[in-house]
């Protein structure tokens, strides 16, 4: 099968020594097996994420993503833009759709971009990595690459918010999306069919500014995974991963719990199932070790 190429927008959290660097490690391992080439957008900048709205107005926020998109059009002609981070994907896709459907905004954006010699024409689609997996490969093809089926591993598919709303994955419902469960199944693991917190918000950026309120929600996300017998939680979003993993000690203190639930990315599961080792799969980035998954990686 020919190599598939995409114009890649990794985003700030994926950088070396940043909070989702382990996500990036597993994405590269997964893409290696799938023969996917990710061409990084040269000198990309931050998308403004969710809380950029306070300091930046509409055009200021849209223009941040428009710069990335304009560079992508220029440097990676004919390729779809792909983001791995949920917030990056949301902000970038929103920019494309808003500018494409509003001539005035598009003129304004291009007037600003002209200052730095760029032009944006909304030529490329903006997609999440999960869409690439499901739409450009499909579950069957993804399953063909599995070397170590993750037999007996019970996975709570925590979809969260921003890969699910407002855009979501084509053909999926907002209230009960199934794609993550299907991916889990494709890797030979066992999805929790009745994980009721799969689209519950973890607080997002408010985990920093409103820790008590956010941790109350995170507690429910983890508790429901335990209640339904999960060994591990898997998610497509870097903020979800971080929020649900790193505050478990604090939540244990506040709520007298004994949580120690590993939280990985879909790409971590896939890398391990595809035969990649501990480090290549980003398992060394787990603050709460994914012990059961590690056993598959060591096989």
């Amino acid at each position, binding site marked *: 099968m020919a190599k598939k190429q995409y114009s890649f927008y990794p985003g*700030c*959290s994926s*950088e070396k*020594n*940043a*909070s*989702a*660097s*382990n996500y990036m490690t597993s994405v590269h391992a997964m893409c290696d097996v799938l023969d996917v080439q990710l061409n990084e957008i040269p*000198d*990309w*900048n*931050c998308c*403004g*994420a*969710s*809380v*950029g*709205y*306070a*300091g*930046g*107005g*509409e*055009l*200021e926020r849209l*223009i*941040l993503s428009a*710069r990335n998109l304009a560079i992508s059009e220029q440097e990676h002609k004919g390729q779809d833009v792909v983001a791995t981070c949920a917030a990056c994907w949301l902000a970038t896709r929103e920019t494309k759709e808003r500018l494409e459907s509003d001539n005035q905004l598009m003129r*304004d*954006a291009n*007037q*600003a*971009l002209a*200052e*730095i010699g760029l032009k944006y024409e909304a030529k490329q689609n903006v997609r999440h990595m999960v869409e690439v997996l499901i739409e450009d490969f499909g579950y069957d093809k993804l399953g063909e690459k599995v070397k170590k089926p993750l037999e007996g591993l019970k996975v709570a598919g925590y979809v969260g*918010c*921003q890969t699910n*709303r*407002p855009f*979501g994955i084509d053909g999926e419902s*907002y209230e009960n999306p199934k794609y993550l469960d299907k991916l889990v199944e494709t890797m030979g693991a066992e999805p929790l069919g009745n994980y009721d917190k799969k689209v*519950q*918000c973890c*607080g*997002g*950026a*408010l985990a*920093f*500014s*409103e820790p008590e*309120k*956010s941790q109350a929600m995170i507690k429910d996300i983890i508790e429901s995974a335990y209640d339904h017998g999960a060994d591990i939680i898997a998610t497509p979003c870097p903020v979800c991963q971080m929020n649900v993993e*790193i505050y478990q*000690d*604090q939540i244990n203190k506040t709520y007298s719990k004994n949580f120690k639930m590993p939280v990985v990315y879909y790409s971590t599961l896939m890398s391990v199932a595809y035969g990649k080792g501990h480090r290549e799969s980003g398992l*060394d*980035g*787990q*603050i709460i070790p994914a012990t059961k998954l590690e056993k598959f990686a060591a096989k």
Partner: protein
Amino acid sequence: MNDTSKPIDAIRKMSMSAGNTAMIERYRNHFLKEVTDNVEEGEWVNMCMQCGVCAGSCPLGNAWAHPPQEIFMMIRAGKREEVLTSDSMWMCTSCYNCIVRCPRKLPITHIMHGLARYAERLGLAPKNQPTRKFAMMFWDNITKTGRANEVTLGIRLYFMHGFVNGIKTALKMLPVGLSMIKTKRMSPLGLVAHSGCKGKNDITKLLKKAREIEEARMKKY
């Protein structure tokens, strides 16, 4: 014979009309127009049918003094100060539940962000609201070099409620920070060596121009 044939009627009509105009002026709802003109997606506020699905769908719904549908009604009732000084919009986690569930497809998340931004722009946003503070730090952080520096952002966050609270928060967060460093998901080097974008000057220029364009479109109220 028209109705101003008698001098007394003419005078009465004039004074009534002047009085009416004054009363109408007093109750004219400029705020709805202001929101329509100046707030991102503000033209949608009129379309809210007050069903309350947004309030019921919000993960932090119980933390909002005024849930979105109430904010919409307050805008229509001209409660400018109460809306713009409210901390409600700052409770938005950007989960987009309200958007996908709104029967009339109002872009509620965007309107809430837009209102928060507008309040901030006018200097009316509650100064010590934690998400406002954090969000302003975030914007400052990302626009300085073009990319987020998670280390400096984290440290500024811990100290946002003063030095003593900062030390307390930093100590509370220390185990989390250390485990992030241990797993190479954070590096103290970020304090001194964060390169950001090569085109950071371009980004400064770009944002300056975008703000200029946006400011020029703002209507005065």
